[in-house]
């Protein structure tokens, strides 16, 4: 006697080509932008076919539909593969979920035909398979979020490195032009890179230019002070430049004491100071007689 589970599995197995076609039809319709522009058709077919096969095995297993154990490992790694392609291609989480969940409708149409004379079994099997696909959907969502987070971290790290350059201006002089928003994470990064820059360049003077920083509030001021303290500990002098009149006003209102720092209005004046501190001087070129 064939069990209900085996019957269901058989339905999927016998109709797998048709199910796959229906499913592909459906997901192509779901997507806002043409799916196949982002994922090659052949790859999509192959992955979906594999996924259907593994789901069939999952469905054939006795138990409560828990996606766990040795046999499910292949399913999980395939899912990770499929989802990561989508996450990298900027598919939204709902598009990604829809890909998995749309299989339900397709499968259930075939179940209805095959279990037409046994409504009780039909309902039981629909519920069972539904809960398995739900679990796969939830796992996919977790994988998706994890991968997106990874991508975002990677990107913001890249931006951070781009926007916190430590530039060697002259022997013994490094320049740190700050642009954009300084938060705790960035300030940490800033301090680390600056200290490394000081050591690498044996810098005596550090010029920090803040003309690209939109708001100097107490937090930013505190980060700046920490940066200065750290640089001073390595024996460098710090010159802060690029304080706009607007920012100067707010700093005064906030009553933050930047007195510990040597400040100069313009970057040019700061660099001149830096030269002086290094015992150098900028002079007009003398014509050779």
């Amino acid at each position, binding site marked *: 006697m064939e069990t209900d589970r085996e019957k269901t599995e058989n339905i999927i197995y016998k109709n797998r080509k048709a199910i796959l076609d229906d499913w592909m039809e459906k997901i192509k319709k779901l997507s806002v932008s043409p799916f196949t522009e982002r994922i090659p058709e052949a790859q999509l077919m192959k992955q979906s076919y594999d996924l259907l096969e593994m789901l069939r095995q999952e469905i054939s297993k006795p138990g409560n539909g828990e996606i766990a154990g040795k046999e499910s490992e292949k399913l999980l790694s395939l899912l990770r593969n499929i989802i990561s392609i989508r996450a990298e291609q900027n598919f939204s989480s709902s598009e990604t979920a829809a890909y998995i969940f749309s299989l339900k409708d397709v499968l259930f149409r075939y179940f209805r035909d095959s279990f037409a004379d046994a409504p009780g079994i039909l309902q039981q099997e629909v519920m069972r398979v539904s809960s398995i696909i739900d679990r796969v959907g939830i796992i996919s969502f977790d994988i998706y979020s994890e991968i997106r987070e990874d991508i975002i971290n990677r990107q913001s790290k890249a931006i951070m490195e781009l926007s916190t350059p430590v530039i060697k201006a002259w022997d013994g002089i490094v320049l740190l032009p700050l642009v954009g928003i300084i938060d705790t994470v960035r300030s940490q990064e800033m301090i680390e890179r600056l200290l490394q820059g000081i050591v690498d360049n044996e810098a005596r003077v550090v010029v920090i230019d803040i003309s690209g920083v939109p708001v100097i*509030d107490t937090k930013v001021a505190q980060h700046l002070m920490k940066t200065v303290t750290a640089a001073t500990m390595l024996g460098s002098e710090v010159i802060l430049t690029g304080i706009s009149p607007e920012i100067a*006003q707010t700093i005064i209102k*906030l009553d933050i004491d930047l007195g510990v720092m040597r400040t100069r209005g313009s970057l040019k004046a700061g660099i001149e100071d830096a030269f002086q501190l290094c015992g150098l001087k900028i002079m007009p070129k003398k014509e050779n007689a």
Partner: protein
Amino acid sequence: MMKEIIGLQQQTDIIQARKIGREMAKTLGFGSADQTRLATAISEITRNAIQYGRGGHCAISGYSDRNERKISISVEDRGPGIPDIDKAMEDGYTTGHGLGAGLPGARRLMHEFHIESGSGGTKVVMGMKQKNF
């Protein structure tokens, strides 16, 4: 009359709030020094709401008529409140390893400043206005 409301949960909401504030001030015709003062005050008060008040929201509203232009900021949280407001308003008072300059600084940056606090949370209302000629 313009009005915007920004939820305050995380760091990026602070940036969003002060950006909206700055833009509204600009639209209303405030100069760049005022825009910067406003943005800085918003930064201080919204950060407090997130850091000490478990988040909340920030309402920014403004108008300009024949007589004056005005921008008002209201920041509310549902945190534990400030036990001693007078002390919190003192320069240098901090319980969070800050500079203790946020509240008193914001008061000096703005033209109007009110703070209420109780066990149900904290509310700061501040405003900046200017005559229209």
